[in-house]
């Protein structure tokens, strides 16, 4: 099944990426599609957006999730179950549903602006959805809200497997909480951190639901994601399956590059 629905389509896509034409009338054009990538302003914009999401969102989310899970792992903490459930709750929502909620929360006369103005943090409404910078921020805030709890669960599970006697020993040796975190927790969790950072990277590169439902990719192409661009190329305008497949391969190549980098970074810390 996996071969039928993953690897066969991958080969198909590879073939198609060398073809061009409207709809199903595809002809071989060699590397033309790949050349087009580098001069296509929309493609460059979507790649830039994706990079910004990645560089800002993934580290913020991972550090936040790690921090929360370390706090929650404290055996003396009360209301642990409540905090854990509350923070995991966003993961229960559908991407579409929460996107629509965020769209209203962050609209010009939406609740976020109203509240910020009431406490006089801002003088006039922030153009969350129509300003290129703030629109990107809205998407980043939305994704962080949705996925932090998800990553937290992985860290919590892993933390519970660390033998408490290691911490006891460190305390006796006089290690501060700060030192314990960086000398014990982070190294012990390295495989899980690697796992979550790779899955988050893949997730970000595949971003679609949020962008489509919060900003529709706008203003201009300021928030458009790679997946949305592929969707638009194949199903919205005159279908150009060949070029869409080329953009798909660009994502695959990006994912491979990022994964290698992440493995390298994690590996170097080992040595």
């Amino acid at each position, binding site marked *: 099944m996996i071969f039928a629905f993953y690897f066969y389509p991958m080969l198909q*896509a590879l073939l198609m990426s060398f073809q061009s034409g409207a709809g199903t009338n595809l002809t071989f054009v060699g590397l033309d599609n790949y050349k087009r990538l580098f001069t296509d302003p929309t493609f460059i914009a979507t790649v830039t957006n994706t990079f910004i999401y990645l560089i800002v969102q993934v580290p913020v989310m991972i550090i936040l999730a790690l921090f929360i899970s370390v706090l929650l792992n404290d055996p003396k903490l009360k209301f642990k179950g409540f905090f854990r459930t509350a923070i995991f709750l966003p993961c229960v929502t559908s991407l579409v549903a929460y996107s629509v909620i965020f769209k209203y929360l962050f609209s010009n006369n939406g609740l976020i602006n109203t509240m910020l103005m009431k406490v006089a943090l801002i003088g006039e409404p922030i153009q969350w959805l129509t300003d290129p910078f703030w629109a990107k921020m809205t998407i980043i805030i939305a994704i962080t*809200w949705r996925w932090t709890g998800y990553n937290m669960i992985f860290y919590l599970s892993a933390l519970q497997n660390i033998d408490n006697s290691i911490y006891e020993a460190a305390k006796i040796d006089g290690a501060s909480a700060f030192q314990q975190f960086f000398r014990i927790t982070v190294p012990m969790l390295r495989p899980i951190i690697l796992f979550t950072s790779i899955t988050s990277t893949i997730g970000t590169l595949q971003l679609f639901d949020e962008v489509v439902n919060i900003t529709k990719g706008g203003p201009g192409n300021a928030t458009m994601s790679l997946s949305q661009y592929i969707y638009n190329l194949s199903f919205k305008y005159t279908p150009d399956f060949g070029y869409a497949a080329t953009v798909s391969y660009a994502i695959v190549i990006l994912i491979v590059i990022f994964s290698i980098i992440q493995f390298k970074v994690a590996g170097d810390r080992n040595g």
Partner: protein
Amino acid sequence: MGNLKRGLTYLFLTVVAIVSIFPFLWMIISATNKSVDVTKGRLLPGSHLGQNFNKLLDSVDLVPALMNSAKISVTTTLLALLIASLAGYGFEIFRSKTKDRIFNILLLSMMIPFAALMVPLYRMFGSISGALPFIGIDTAASVILPTVTTAFLIFFFRQSTKMFPKDMLEAGRMDGLNELGVFFRIYVPTMKTTYAAAAIITFMSSWNNFLWPLVVLQSPGQRTIPLLISNLGSSYSPDFGVIMTAIVIATLPTALLFFAMQKHFVAGMMGSVK
């Protein structure tokens, strides 16, 4: 630990918890309010839930969409659990060099983004539409088939199987059970928590799936819940109260499932990380 530090910990966790819960509360409150009140940012429950609900039923095909979603999600979950657990069991219990290699290749498929598969998959289903209309474009089967086997789920079951007491399988074989008997009579009942966690993950992702259904389900009668909500959310004169009611209804099944199986879920996730 100092009192100040303890206090800061609680303060921080409380803020994070409020931020996490707030959009939910707002969604539920808004579902009971008039559209105008929602835009004004009213934070108190209103009395318009019934009206919103009726309007929703009148304006869109809510019930068919719920049925479509339910049909797709339940089938996907059942099939996915069966296939992935058999595969995970097989990979772990009957290990060999070749199988390990195949497994590594399978893991590669986790790296392939769905967007990269979308176009060829669409063409694939398009071309079989003529010969096999019941699994072609615009059918529930076309949504289910590509999502039913995932390397992630096989990986998840394989990891959990590592902890499985192998003597129990031996005992079962000695008692004369065949391999499928061992699997269904011994393995499945002992792995309940793993199944629960896997079921929640699969059901949620299937219930909430948006991109692929958006591509293959083209007639309004086939629409699933996320497609319906996306459509409502992008209409020109949105009735916010009605939309919020729709979102609450769409979120209920996954939220209830999660709360009902929360204990098993956490236990199952932990088993897989070990």
